[in-house]
């Protein structure tokens, strides 16, 4: 290919050079010879700075803007691995997962899954769990606003229709399964406490009430109940799900009532309707 590159080719060449993880010189060197010649010919040489130095201004702005955003989105991951390794993690991440969303807000979308297979997870086996917790916190922060079910409204529901009640959950609610106690580890990272943690299956729910994001470890029964509710289960379905065989129905209902009371207090119920079928 010869002559002046069209706009599309100009942009593709420019892109390949400025996103290269080792900088513009390495980006140019990595191009096929014809593309390298075309990329070198793109720029007007001017005194004061070389073309590679000018391209590096863009290469640095590209990487550090995303790095800074991800430091804010994943403060626990940053605290766990330290600034140098976080830099390396994001360098590796962007090679595989360049941002594809128009908003920087979503640049870290694939980081929890990516961290699971990254070498840093050998030294920090809870890294992916902490990343997933932080991503859920971000999702809860700007989730769609949903109403908070009022306990007084629920108290007016006649006892005979409770079994057919279906609860709507807050759109901000996330129920997560971890191999490590990610909630406690995350709190320790924020408190600057050294992390010493053994594997322990942990369930955590993350939600927003008004403008604040919360998280709390929950037991397996609550996790099952919330997942069933999200799938459309009624109060009676959840009672049956959680009760061992031959449990007194009133005892089973009391256990689920207890959960409902907690959910009301935390503001994770958005509504309740009597099931039509």
């Amino acid at each position, binding site marked *: 290919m010869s002559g002046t590159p069209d706009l599309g080719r100009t*942009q593709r060449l420019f892109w390949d050079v400025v996103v290269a993880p080792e900088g513009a010189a390495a980006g140019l060197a990595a191009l096929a010879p014809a593309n390298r010649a075309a990329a070198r010919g793109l720029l007007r040489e001017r005194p004061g700075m070389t073309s590679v130095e000018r391209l590096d201004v863009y290469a640095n702005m590209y990487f550090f803007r995303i790095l800074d955003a991800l430091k804010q989105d994943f403060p626990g991951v940053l605290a766990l691995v330290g600034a140098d390794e976080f830099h390396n993690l994001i360098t590796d991440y962007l090679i595989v997962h360049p941002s594809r969303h128009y908003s920087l807000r979503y640049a870290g979308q694939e980081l929890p899954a990516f961290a699971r297979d990254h070498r840093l997870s050998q030294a920090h086996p809870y890294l992916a769990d902490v990343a997933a917790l932080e991503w859920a916190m971000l999702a809860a922060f700007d989730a769609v606003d949903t109403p908070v079910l009022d306990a007084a409204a629920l108290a007016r529901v006649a006892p005979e229709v409770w079994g057919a009640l279906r609860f709507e959950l807050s759109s901000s609610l996330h129920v997560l399964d971890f191999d490590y106690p990610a909630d406690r580890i995350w709190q320790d990272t924020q408190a600057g406490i050294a992390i010493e943690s053994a594997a322990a299956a942990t369930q955590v729910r993350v939600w927003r009430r008004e403008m604040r994001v919360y998280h709390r470890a929950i037991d397996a029964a609550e996790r099952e109940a919330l997942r069933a509710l999200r799938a459309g289960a009624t109060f009676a379905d959840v009672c049956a799900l959680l009760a061992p065989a031959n449990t007194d129905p009133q005892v089973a209902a009391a256990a689920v009532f207890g959960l409902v009371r907690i959910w009301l207090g935390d503001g994770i119920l958005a509504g309740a309707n009597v099931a039509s079928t």
Partner: protein
Amino acid sequence: MHHRQDRDFPALGFGVGLRSAHYDEILAERPQVDWFEVISENFMVPGGRPLHVLERVREHYPIVLHGVSLSIGSTDPLNPTYLDDLAALAHRCEPAWISDHLCWTGVAGRNAHDLLPLPYTEEAIVHVAERVLRVQDRLGRRILLENASTYLEFAHSSVPEWEFLAAIAERADCGILLDVNNIFVSAFNHGFSAQAYIAAIPIERVKQFHLAGHTDRGAFLHDTHDHPVCDEVWALYGMAVERFGAVSTLIEWDDDIPPFARLQQEAERARSVVQLATLRAPGAA
């Protein structure tokens, strides 16, 4: 000195960028400032605090949506999701107008989240102008395009930046958000005259000014928005006000963000520049 009226781009006075560091103070104290500009993408989210704050602020101040991801110069197709989300945000907060940058931000579906430079060619003028027309159709309003700071020049550029900007504004019938600091930064980086740039921009196209601080890196100036506006840019702003009139002006400060009162000082300094120019204008009482 003239205060030009424009139905699409009313004169808002002297504003500052709305940044999260100041949310609580603005909501609690409702400080004196004529208007706020917000980064559109920060509020193109499903719900939660950002939209809550935006709606509260909008109750008391005019707002302008200033985007960073329209990618008007990209050879990728326009992103219909982006335009839908931007239109929905505009419907929600009724901005005085919408602006973005004369640049591209990504290609092949990837986003650099940075304002990347365009070659100043006829091909790019045709490409960008056609896309601006489509964006304006989709949004149901004219937009403003801002000149970005640049750090390199393409060898195949055939016109200077100011001709490129003016040609696109003319062909797309859009307005210009003239960033005075960006002119200063690019003039240093490429060795052209900032004064010649301002003198070449058509008066009737300029509907907003940006003022910001930059960082001197020795070999080049970097548009970092982490300093006060420097004296040279204030002088250039005075020249721009003399040419374009009392155009709506905004102070940008995005890093090392100072107390809100410091931003107010910068906005008031801009007001005083305009007042001084008004006194000096031919025919002033």
